[in-house]
């Protein structure tokens, strides 16, 4: 009888431990979006790592195409996806920790472009370059605008350089990073929309974990951690559009 009790006790311990581990261990699904995430590294990864470490949550980073990363998170417990735009359409499909990063989508042209641009409507008659599958593409679609879609923003930077279009819509960090990479002088003409990029969790993730992570993230904004991580990338891209939020 004692042996049986010991066995039961052992089983209970293992069960408790595995449940505990399950709650404190996540798969961080990512997809490459330079310079935020590239080969499991980058600005967004750095922020997520600090967040999870402060919450004492173990993680493994898994890289895959965007669509697969999102679907895996929707379908599998203890999975999360970094980083996607929190939108009304996606709201009910995930539980959210964010914003991991705030980005600004803007309209860019070559430095030499002299067209007068005051409001978004001023460019409605021009084709706009945009990256496929990005939140920016979604945003432009909402206005029923003519877009030229490329696989990534590096290609868009090259297209702008080659004068294949006069305007390029991208978030400010991506634009600055890719323009530098493509060796093209660009000019920001107009900010279009501020976007909140989040870490999205499977809907079965406990509310307590989500709440805890959001609380830690708030502290990371208030104690300057996010700003510090952002500034560590300042030699790679222009980040003043983002750092203005902390002034």
């Amino acid at each position: 009888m004692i042996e049986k009790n010991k066995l039961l006790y052992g089983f209970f311990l293992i069960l408790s431990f595995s449940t505990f581990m399950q709650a404190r261990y996540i798969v961080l699904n990512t997809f490459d979006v330079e310079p935020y995430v590239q080969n499991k590294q980058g600005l967004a990864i750095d922020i997520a790592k600090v967040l999870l470490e402060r919450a004492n949550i173990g993680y493994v980073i898994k890289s895959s195409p965007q669509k697969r990363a999102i679907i895996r998170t929707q379908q599998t417990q203890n999975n999360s996806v970094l980083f996607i735009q929190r939108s009304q359409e996606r709201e009910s499909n995930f539980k959210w920790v964010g914003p991991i990063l705030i980005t600004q989508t803007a309209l860019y042209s070559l430095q030499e472009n002299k067209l007068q641009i005051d409001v978004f409507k001023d460019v409605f008659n021009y084709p706009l370059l945009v990256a496929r599958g990005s939140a920016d593409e979604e945003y432009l679609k909402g206005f029923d605008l003519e877009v030229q879609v490329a696989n990534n923003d590096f290609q868009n930077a090259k297209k702008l350089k080659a004068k294949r279009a006069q305007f390029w819509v991208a978030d400010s960090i991506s634009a600055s990073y890719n323009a530098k990479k493509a060796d093209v002088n660009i000019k920001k003409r107009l900010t279009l929309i501020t976007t909140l990029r989040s870490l999205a969790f499977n809907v079965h993730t406990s509310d307590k974990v989500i709440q805890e992570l959001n609380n830690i993230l708030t502290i990371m904004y208030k104690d300057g951690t996010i700003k510090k991580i952002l500034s560590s990338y300042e030699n790679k891209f222009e980040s003043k559009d983002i750092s203005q939020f902390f002034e």
Partner: protein
Amino acid sequence: MNFSNKNVKTFLFISLLFFTLTLKANNNLIHKYINEEFQPSTLNKQEQLQELLWFQKASQPFKGMEIRVVSERIGTHWYEASVLAKAFREITGIKIIHEITGEDDVIKKIDIHLKKGINLYDMYINDSDLIGTHFRSGNVVALNEFMEQEGKDVTLPTLDLKDFIGLSFVTGPDKKLYQLPDQQFANLYWYRADWFARADFKKRFKEIYGYELNVPVNWSAYEDIAEFFTIHVHKIDGQKVYGHMDYGKRDPSIGWRFSDAWLSMAGVGDKGLPNGLPVDEWGIRVENCRPVGASMSRGGAANSPAAIYALRKFNEWLKKYAPPEAKHMNFSQAGSVPARGHIAQQIFWYTAFTASMTKKGLPVVNEDGTPKWKMAPSPHGVYWEKGMKLGYQDAGSWTMLKSVPLKRRKAAWLYAQFVVSKTVSLKKTIVGLTPIRNSDINSNHMSKISKNLGGLVEFYRSKARLLWTPTGTNVPDYPLLSPAWWKTVPKVVEEGLSATNAMNELARYLDEKLLLLSKEKKTECSPILNKARNPSYWLEKNGSPKKRLIYEKPKGITVDYEKALEIYD
């Protein structure tokens, strides 16, 4: 340096010439806007000139600044972002980034700004549904104080606050003005006036139901009319028609249907305008200004018989009388459906859709441009009593947060006043059909165009308007509490959960969040939950929560359109 007299004179002459030319160019620009864009106006051109010159002068210290604001995506704000922002920049030299996004995103952004302390925008156009959040937070600037104190030098002398129709929506229990309305629209009853006027339909309806086919006053009549068109009429000119339209997809927008007004139409809350007191249309009870619970066990009404009736009817009508695809739609997908010409009536229709529903060529618009449809006050549920609110009014309103540096707040306040000023307000109202000023509503121009607007002008000129109000001050944290609705309602539509169980779950959710808030920052008006009691304790008392009525479907009542507004006088 040694200047001769001649040089000094030349310099002064050139400066004066430059100044004169600049002034002339500026005046030409202002005149151009007055003549070409800001017409019609309730001001005469001289008065418009005076207002615009005031903006130009008051903006001098902020010239060259870039100001960021955000609003939801409706026609009115698009006009502001693309026309008025440009005009403001040209007239004042202040560059405006007016971002347009979904309302859900606006709420998330202001919530993050408030809770994480990140200065995302210099001002927000934020629905007044957050008034309960704002007055409790301590982080939102009371505009009446701002206008008298640090913002006095940038407050338009001709702003004329008394002219705004929605000030009660943006005033806290402390009588302070926390927001300034920028646009307003209501949810009303929408119906095909041409079909309702057909003698054959009228005759058949009376034969079946025993009363006239007309504008429904109560939910019984609405239900009968829904059944009549979906089941009995079935087809018109070979096309399948439906007596009801709504949406039921799991999406934040399903929450708006409920948090906006559904329970108030059913009659869940107490009497009181703009919101019921002590129990509002969310079913939240306040004592003084403290929320004390949403469940019946704590004196609330979120799971009361009236609330259960409201959800049951919503689900029943959606499944019985709406097009089958409606239950898989969200707000955006469902919005354009009545314009396709196969819907006879819709109990909950936002007047913000008026402009898009009056476009020539639509099956619901006559060849002369007049609509085949009309809007009228929404019918009420069996628990509704005179003295209660009856519907929802969205009041997107300028909101200023304390964390934004004063200089930026002042520049943003100038833009906020510009887009609601009398100089531009009537034109903006005509473009977006979201009136905020009495002077615009009662203008001759609105009378002239009213025949093309399906009853919008008549509604806004009537006293019935006062019964259409936004979420009020009982809701202490809108971003935290509002997900309760969209997380619960779809379980009834999609999973077959009973209305009773769903509303119990909803009431629990609201109570849990109120408890959470009670443990956070403690202020004079922060929640403290009542102790849980047997619900009968509250049901025996007068007012909300109300006892279950034995007959929840009394006889249907309908009235002529002309009388539909008068009955709320």
